[in-house]
């Protein structure tokens, strides 16, 4: 029984890991790549770590596996946020099909402060990239 669960978790994990890799390779811009990789990899590694917990079945291993998962859940999004922000500052281009970029021009490049902006009342009609 544990073997079956272990195997299933491993397969799920590996699947999402491959998706993460594929995503980061295939996606056309930085934000899309991060989008694809950050969650898929968290899910993938989470599944694999759970597989370890199930496989060994000891408290020590489980605790450590769960702690690692928690840590990853906590840090992966922050890393993505930091990188995305950095990407904005160095002027990484968004893919041409981007519908709207409401963040564009909101950063004060000198002070690195971010202004708030009230959302547009209507969704944009055009598909013009806004960057």
């Amino acid at each position, binding site marked *: 029984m544990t073997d079956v669960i272990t195997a299933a978790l491993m397969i799920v994990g590996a699947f999402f890991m491959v998706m993460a890799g594929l995503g980061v390779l295939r996606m056309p811009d930085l934000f899309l790549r991060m989008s694809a990789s950050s969650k898929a990899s968290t899910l993938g590694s989470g599944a694999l770590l759970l597989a370890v917990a199930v496989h060994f079945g000891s408290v020590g291993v489980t605790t450590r596996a769960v702690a690692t998962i928690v840590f990853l859940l906590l840090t992966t999004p922050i890393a993505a946020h930091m990188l995305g922000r950095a990407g904005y500052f160095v002027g990484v281009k968004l893919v041409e099909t981007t519908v709207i970029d409401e963040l564009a021009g909101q950063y004060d490049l000198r002070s690195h402060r971010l*202004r708030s902006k009230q959302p547009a009342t209507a969704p944009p009609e055009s598909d013009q990239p806004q960057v």
Partner: protein
Amino acid sequence: MNTLLLNTLLALSWIALTGTFTPANLLFGFVLGYGLLAFTQRLLPPSRYFTMVPRVIAFVLLFLAELIQANLRVAFSVLSPRLDLRPAVVAIPLSVRSDPAITLLANLITLTPGTLYLDVSEDRQVMYVHTIHVHDLEQFRQGIKNGFERRVKELLE
């Protein structure tokens, strides 16, 4: 949170009593302890603990469901030969204000596929989110506000 401590102690006592220190047994001890606590303390003034725990569990389940479902969606789109994307960076007005709440919300947004938390304005009025596929901006904003933001607000504020 004293109740959590008590619950944990009960779970550990269960382990000590049964003498088998396995994750399953620990979980069982915890559930058992929770039930006992809920049972024994129902006459005392209402503790947040007992309303919180189900909420947290529901929240986690919702999150997991979203996580897996959306991950599959992304997998599907990554695997499709032509990437069919309508990405956007959307500003979402915020109603949560506390640091932990914003942080939790941000993490949730990022961990659920399709969306990626980018930053929050200095005045905490607006959160900027990147999304892979947007049809209707307003619908997207409302989806976030009614989904994760509401639950985070319930949980933490």
